[in-house]
């Protein structure tokens, strides 16, 4: 294990790195770490044993600081699927800073739950529960996907003049969601199972697809919708209650833990399940629960890499890091808990300060200009990681992401890009599906 001073230095470097890039709309920490590894490599400037702590610091920072882009710049990844719309409303009311504060309350709560869980619950409870349930993951995953389809709430239909018109208004949204899921799935299947992207991009081949689904599509929506840059109140005031905070923390922790422990189940899907289980209501509760959820989902999933008696690799960040070095001892596990607390403290202060600055100067730089810059950077990232074909995949997945918005359906249906090929593979039908698509 590295000396404590080195762990502190590298984790601090991770927090700094994560904080500096995570507030930029459309940037995802996994993509940026992948880019770093691709461009600079690990092992020369940074010891391989330091990489997990650097990654942990950066991911903690991301789970906090990305609230800025979600709230002020309307871009978030899939795990913020519920967060997006309440925060947009807060922003339109000039209460963007309040939304950030609510999120931070959730993030701090999530950090405490995670740390307590890592200290007292995870080492003892997670291994047997995981062992008992892991053979049935495909069942859970299929069940969640089916529930997503079945539970889509028709947003229109009430005002149709005839039964036929009402049914059509309701079902065009539901059918649109199913279409988005399957088109995403076919794209994901092609990306995962063909040589459309270079083999040298083994760890980053899904990156352009996800940038398109969740990053680029929203950057383009920002450009098209040209949202008004309304003055924001920088005062430290929130409207919520202790009851709502506790309830939201519980729900967020539940969803985040499910997503962290089980593969393919993402933060958004976990939030959907937990939201129903705990019957959550209220924008404040939603935002708080998302803060909890994202910390548990991102940081919790990554932390499982450190748990010696479980050793689960969950999330793209963990896969990337584990390909270089996997922590092995309880000392590293305990050090990781310390790093989470330290990184969370720094990230909290950074997010808070940044939110105050942005709230005070919100209309200085228009989101449309920022979005043009980000769109260009996202194309460059895709090109550097996966070449020109990656840019083509980025284009196609962006169109699919925009389709989800056009159908007024759940953005999380784009996760079909990951879920469908994995389900096909888990059930042993990859060959048949390849044949069906005319690919083999």
């Amino acid at each position: 294990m590295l000396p404590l001073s080195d762990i502190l230095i590298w984790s601090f470097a991770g927090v700094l790195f994560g904080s500096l890039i995570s507030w930029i709309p459309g940037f995802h920490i996994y993509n940026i770490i992948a880019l770093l590894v691709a461009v600079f490599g690990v092992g020369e400037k940074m010891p391989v044993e330091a990489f997990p702590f650097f990654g942990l610091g950066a991911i903690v920072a991301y789970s906090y600081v990305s609230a800025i882009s979600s709230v002020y710049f309307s871009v978030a990844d899939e795990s913020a699927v519920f967060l997006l719309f309440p925060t947009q409303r807060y922003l339109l009311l000039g209460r963007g800073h309040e939304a950030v504060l609510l999120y931070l309350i959730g993030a701090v709560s999530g950090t405490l739950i995670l740390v307590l869980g890592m200290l007292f619950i995870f080492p003892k409870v997670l291994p047997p529960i995981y062992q008992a349930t892991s053979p049935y993951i495909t069942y859970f995953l299929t069940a969640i996907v089916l529930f997503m389809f079945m539970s889509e709430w028709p947003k229109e239909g009430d005002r149709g003049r005839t039964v036929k018109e009402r049914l059509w208004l309701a079902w065009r949204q539901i059918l649109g969601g199913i279409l988005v899921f399957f088109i995403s799935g076919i794209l994901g299947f092609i990306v995962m199972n063909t040589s459309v992207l270079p083999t040298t991009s083994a760890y980053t081949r899904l990156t352009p697809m996800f940038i398109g689904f969740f990053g680029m599509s929203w950057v383009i929506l920002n450009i098209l919708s040209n949202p008004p840059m309304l003055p924001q109140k920088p005062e430290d005031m929130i409207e919520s209650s202790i009851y709502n905070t506790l309830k939201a923390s519980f729900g967020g922790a539940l969803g985040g833990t499910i997503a962290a422990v089980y593969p393919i189940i993402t933060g958004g899907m976990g939030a959907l399940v937990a939201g129903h289980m705990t019957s959550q209501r209220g924008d404040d509760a939603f935002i708080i629960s998302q803060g909890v959820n994202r910390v548990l989902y991102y940081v919790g999933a990554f932390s499982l890499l450190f748990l010696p008696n479980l050793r689960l690799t969950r999330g793209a960040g963990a896969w990337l890091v584990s390909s270089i070095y996997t922590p092995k001892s309880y000392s590293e596990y305990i050090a990781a808990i310390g790093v989470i607390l330290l990184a969370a403290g720094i990230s909290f202060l950074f997010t808070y300060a940044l939110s105050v600055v942005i709230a005070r100067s919100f209309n200085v730089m228009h989101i449309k200009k920022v979005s043009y810059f980000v769109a260009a950077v996202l194309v460059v990232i895709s090109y550097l990681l996966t070449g020109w074909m990656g840019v083509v995949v980025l284009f196609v997945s962006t169109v699919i992401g925009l389709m989800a918005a056009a159908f007024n359906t759940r953005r999380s249906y784009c996760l079909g890009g990951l879920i469908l090929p994995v389900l096909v593979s888990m059930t042993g039908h990859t060959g048949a599906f390849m044949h069906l698509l005319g690919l083999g």
Partner: protein
Amino acid sequence: MRGFTHYISGLAVATFFPSLVADIRMGILIPVIAAASAYFPDFVDFKFGKFFARRDYEIDPAPWDEKKHYAPKLVRIKDLSEKNRYQFFAIEGKVEEILTKGSGTISYEIIEKDGTVRTVKEEYNSIIFTLSDGTGKIVVDAFGDDYRFFEEEFGQIEEGKEILVFGYVDVDPDGSLRFVVSDAPHPQRIADTIAEAIETAYEEGEKIVKIHNIRLPGDVYRRFVVHLDPPKREVRVEMGPIVTPGGIAIGGEPPEYRKYGIAKVNVPFIKTYPKPTRIDSFSGPEIAFRRTKHRGKTVVKDRFLPWHHGFSHSMTMGVIIGIFVFLFAKLFGYSHATDLALASMIGQWLHVFEDQLGFMGSNLFPPLTKDVIPGFKLGESGSGLTNFSTAWLMIALMIWNFNRFTNPRPIPISDATLLLYLIWPSIIGFGIAIAKSFKLRREINELMDYYTNLEAFEEMEEVGGI
């Protein structure tokens, strides 16, 4: 219960069948049908039944603009009529003539929280002018708080000025139309229509009212609350603040003088649920008013979402689902068709049972039974406590079953001990819910006794109807 609670119950039921667990373990995913069957009643009701339901009265306080899908709808003056009284619209036109501009004192009644009515007198400023949009002209009236807003928005009003003004339509005693500047519809139309529906139901048997919600730009909603007050024989509608879909109020309370709509009802009616109906985001509700006997007296009784908890939520439907799943599975050569059919049927029955714990109840054995059997009133369908307790119980049962049916057992402790370790959160949750439900049930019983002994009911019988 929420949809996922039912769904996960079906998932859990499947794990009680060792054959199905073995299949799931091998990657055969067909047992997920049991979960879909458990969710099926809500799926049918909310994706189909809701849209097929009859509507005898349709209340749309603020029709949507067809392009933007929110209110107010931009209308032409020639398209307005008495039928639009109190509805919220936008009109774009030119100020033709300023009729009066002045001030005075207005007096109006406001309703306190305890239901008492208080008269308020207030100074006001006002402007009345005619607006023309090429298709006709209408008198526009802004006064009180709305005048202040109007002045801020348009400044000095001059003849010939082009404006887009929003408000509700009113009808003068002489039958001519007037457009009252406001940021919400007037609630009187809602109250009048509901009162009319109750009275018609008393005469004809059953009337269903569809109440649309009020969606405004920015995905926010104007909340309004419908109080059915049987002792006073009143329908009171209170226009509330603008709220987000998450229910957070963001201001925009209407002024007191156009906040309330009160309509008297000339027949006895009772309300089965002791809370007012709140309408804001998502879609507006349907309420059925049915003539029925209440402890020997003819009254009109309300039923929320009449298309919900019908045949789809019956034990009979569970049997049909079981038979259908069995045939389907046999057709595709699934070797555990009987177990899957049983799991699907029990899953659907669990849904019915879980809903029966709430308020609405279901018609359990149609066609043998004709009417809804009241719920056990353990908690509301949206209660986080009962939903979580049930969902957690199902997760616990799944883990328990997975462990029981795996050799060697991943968690090597006795079944009873493991079950106890897993389900204690649900036991506590249900315990709290049961304790809370006693209070609520007592309140409802008191309310029903009150209705029964209400003098107005007796009086009605003596005179042979009002």
